[in-house]
C-alpha cells in the first residue's frame, strides 16, 4: 500500500488524518487499510464506483458506523491531532464537531424552524432571540432563507427535494461544526438545485473543512480542491483535483475517469 499515490499536508493544515483504517461489516471487509490526510478549509471529494466504501469512510469520521451491528473498525483517525476512535471519546461531542449530510434528504417531520433549531436546542440553547438569529444565519448560509423565510412554521416535509437537501445542510451547519461531511448531496436533485448546492459548497469552504462524496466526476472537478479515488475498499489515488483528472497516476483511476467502468 505504500505505493499509493497520495498527498501529505503540514500538521497545521491537516483536518483529518486517517491511518491504516479498515472497516468490515459482519466480517466482510468494506474498507482495507485506507490512509489519507484531509486538508483543513478545503473541499475534498471522494469518488469511486458504487459500493467501494465512500459512505463507509465518511461514516467512520463521525462514528455513525458504531450504530451498525457487526461492524469492526481498526486503524486510526485523528481530528486535528486527537484520536477519535478511542472508546473514551464522547461521540455526541464528536458529532457536533463533524456535521453530516446524508445521501437522502432526511428532514425531521417538524417545522422548518424546528429542524434547523434542533441541534441548537440539544445544546441547551433556548432563548428565542438567539435561536431565531442562528436559524436565519444557517438558512442564509445554505441559500435557503429567501425561499422559506415566510414559511418557517410550515412542515419541512412540504419543501421540495432540493429545498429539503439545503435544509438538512442548514441544519448541519447551524451547530457550527468544524468539518462537514456531504454524502452525495446532489444525487437526487435537478441541475439547478445541484448548481445551488455546488455554489454553496464553494462558499462554505471558506469556513469549514468539507468532504463531499459524489458519483459525478464533473461535480468533483468543479467543487473540490482534492480528490480521493476509492476502489473496492481501497484508496487508489489521492491528489489535487486538477492533477487527478488530468494526469491520473494509477491505471485504475484513469480507467474510471475515462468511463471504462463504474
Amino acid at each position, binding site marked *: 500500500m505504500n505505493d499509493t499515490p497520495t498527498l501529505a499536508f503540514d500538521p497545521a493544515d491537516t483536518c483529518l488524518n486517517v491511518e491504516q483504517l479498515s472497516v468490515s461489516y459482519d466480517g466482510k471487509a468494506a474498507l482495507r487499510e485506507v490512509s489519507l490526510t484531509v486538508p483543513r478549509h478545503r473541499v475534498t471529494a471522494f469518488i469511486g464506483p458504487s459500493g467501494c466504501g465512500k459512505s463507509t469512510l465518511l461514516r467512520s469520521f463521525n462514528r455513525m458506523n458504531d450504530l451498525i451491528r457487526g461492524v469492526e473498525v481498526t486503524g486510526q483517525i485523528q481530528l486535528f491531532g486527537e484520536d477519535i476512535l478511542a472508546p473514551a471519546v464522547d461521540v455526541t461531542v464528536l458529532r*457536533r464537531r463533524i456535521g453530516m449530510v446524508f445521501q437522502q434528504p432526511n428532514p*425531521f*417531520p417538524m417545522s422548518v424552524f424546528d429542524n434547523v433549531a434542533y441541534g441548537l436546542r440539544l445544546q441547551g440553547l433556548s432563548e428565542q432571540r438567539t435561536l431565531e438569529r442562528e436559524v436565519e444565519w444557517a438558512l442564509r448560509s445554505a441559500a435557503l432563507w429567501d425561499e422559506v423565510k415566510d414559511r418557517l412554521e410550515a*412542515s419541512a*416535509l412540504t419543501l421540495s427535494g432540493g429545498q429539503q437537501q439545503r435544509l438538512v445542510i442548514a441544519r448541519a451547519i447551524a451547530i457550527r461544526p468544524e468539518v462537514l461531511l456531504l454524502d452525495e448531496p446532489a444525487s437526487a436533485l435537478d441541475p439547478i438545485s445541484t448548481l445551488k448546492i455546488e455554489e454553496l459548497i464553494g462558499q462554505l469552504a471558506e469556513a469549514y473543512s468539507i468532504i463531499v462524496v459524489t458519483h459525478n466526476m464533473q461535480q468533483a472537478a468543479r467543487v473540490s480542491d482534492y480528490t480521493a479515488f476509492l476502489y473496492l475498499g481501497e484508496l487508489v489515488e489521492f491528489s489535487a483535483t486538477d492533477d487527478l483528472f488530468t494526469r491520473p497516476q494509477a491505471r485504475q483511476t484513469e480507467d474510471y475517469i475515462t468511463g471504462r467502468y463504474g
Partner: protein
Amino acid sequence: MKTPSGWRSGDGALWLSTGAVTLTLLLTVTLLVLLGRVGFGHFWPEPLSTFTFDPATGQAPVVAALREQSTFALPEGGMEARTLLRTGNRDAAPPDFRWVADARLHSVRFDPAAIELERRSWGPALGLLAPPEAPATDRAALAARQWARLEGALALPPQARLGTLTLYSADGSARPLALAEVVRAWRPNAMDLREKLSLYFSRIGAFISEPPREANTEGGIFPALFGTVLMVMLMTVVVTPIGVVAALYLHEYAPQGPRTQMLRIAVNNLAGVPSIVYGVFGLGFFVYLVGGSLDRAFFADALPAPTFGTPGLLWASLTLALLTLPVMIVATEEGLSRIPRQLREASLALGATRLETIRHIILPQALPAVLTGVILAVARGAGEVAPLMLVGVVKLAPELPLDSTFPFLHLDRQFMHLGFHIYDLAFQSPNVEAARPLVYASALLLVLMIVLLNLGAVLLRAYLRGRHRDPLG
C-alpha cells in the same frame, strides 16, 4: 359491445371481499338494533290493558302490559298460542310475569285510569286509579284527584312524601300504596307522544345515572358504568408507559439476536393466554402476595381484616394492564419499526444522545402507533369479565371507588363493572323476565362506552397524524 361483468372479468375476489365486509356490517348493525330495540324499548311507556279471563279458569282479571306472543307445542299434541303478560305487583299478586293461553282470554279493555308505578321495592306496581265498576264521570274525577296528589307528592323529596295512594286492581279490590315508596309514575294510556318521549328519556337518564335497586333488577347501572370507565382508565395509565418502555427496549436497545426474538415471540404468545388465567395470576400474585405483603407492612393494625390483601380496584386494573400489555407492546413496536432509520441517524449525527433521539424524534413519531395500542388495549380490557371476578369486581358495591373522602380514589375498594353486571343480570337474577331488557340495555351501553373511549383515541391519533403529513408521500 358488452363490458364484462365482475365475475367474468375475474374480479371474484373483489366480490367476495365486498360480500364479507357487507356481511360483517350487517351483523354489527343487527346486533346494535337488537340490543337497542329490546334494551331501550324497555324504557318506553307500554300501554296497559285490563285482561279478563274465561270464567272457567277462575282467574281474576289483571291490569297488564302485553310483552310477547308465541306458540307452544303442547305435551298432548297440537299447538297453543300464548301471550306473556307483565302484571307487576310482585308483592300483592305474584307472579309479575305470566303466560296465558290466548284461547282463555275473554276480553281486553283499554282503561285511561291505568297507572304504572316504579317503586323502591317489589318492582313496578300496575293498577287503576279508580275502581273499575264505578260510573265513568266519577272514575275520571277520582283518577284525576289521585293523580294530582301523586304528582304533588313526587315533586317533594322522598322523606316528605306522606300519605298513601289507593290503587285499584282489575277485580275492584283496593289497596293502599305509601307515596314514599314511589319513585316515578305514569299513566301510559292517557299520555300523548310528547309526554311519552319525555318519560322515555328521563327513564333512560335515570338508568344511566342511578344506582341499581332490588338485586340489580331495577334502577340504574351508574356504579357499573363508572367502575368500568375508571378501571379502564387506570389500566390505560398503567399499561401505556410500561408497554411503550418495553417496546422501546425491544426495538431500540436490545441486541437484535435470537434472545430478543425469543422474547418477542413470548410477548406475542402472552396475548393468546386465556384471560381467566390472568385472573388467577392476579389473585395469586397481586392480591395475596403483593396485597398481603402491603397489609403486613403498612396496615398491620387492621389485620386480620385485609386492606389491600383482598380483591379491589387496584388489583383489577393491574391484572387487566398485564392482560393488555402484549397488545400494547406489539402495536408500539410496529410503529417504531415504521420510523425510518434516516431520522434516527439525522438526530444522532447532530450530536443527540440515544435518549434525546427517542424523546424528540422517535416518541413523537411513534405516538399514533401508541394510541393504536391504547385503542386495542381498551377494546380488549373493557370487555373482559372473567379475570375481574377474581380480582375485584362484585355484584353490588355499596360505595363508588371515587368519592369526596380522603384519599378520594379508593384503590382498595371493590367495584361494579358493566360486563359483570350483564353476566349477573343474565344468569344470577332472581327475576329473569324483569332483568332481560336490562341485559340488553347494559350490553348496548357497554358497546357504546367502548366506542366512545376509542373514538377519543382515534380522533387524537388522526389529529397527530395530520399535523405533519408529507403532501407528496
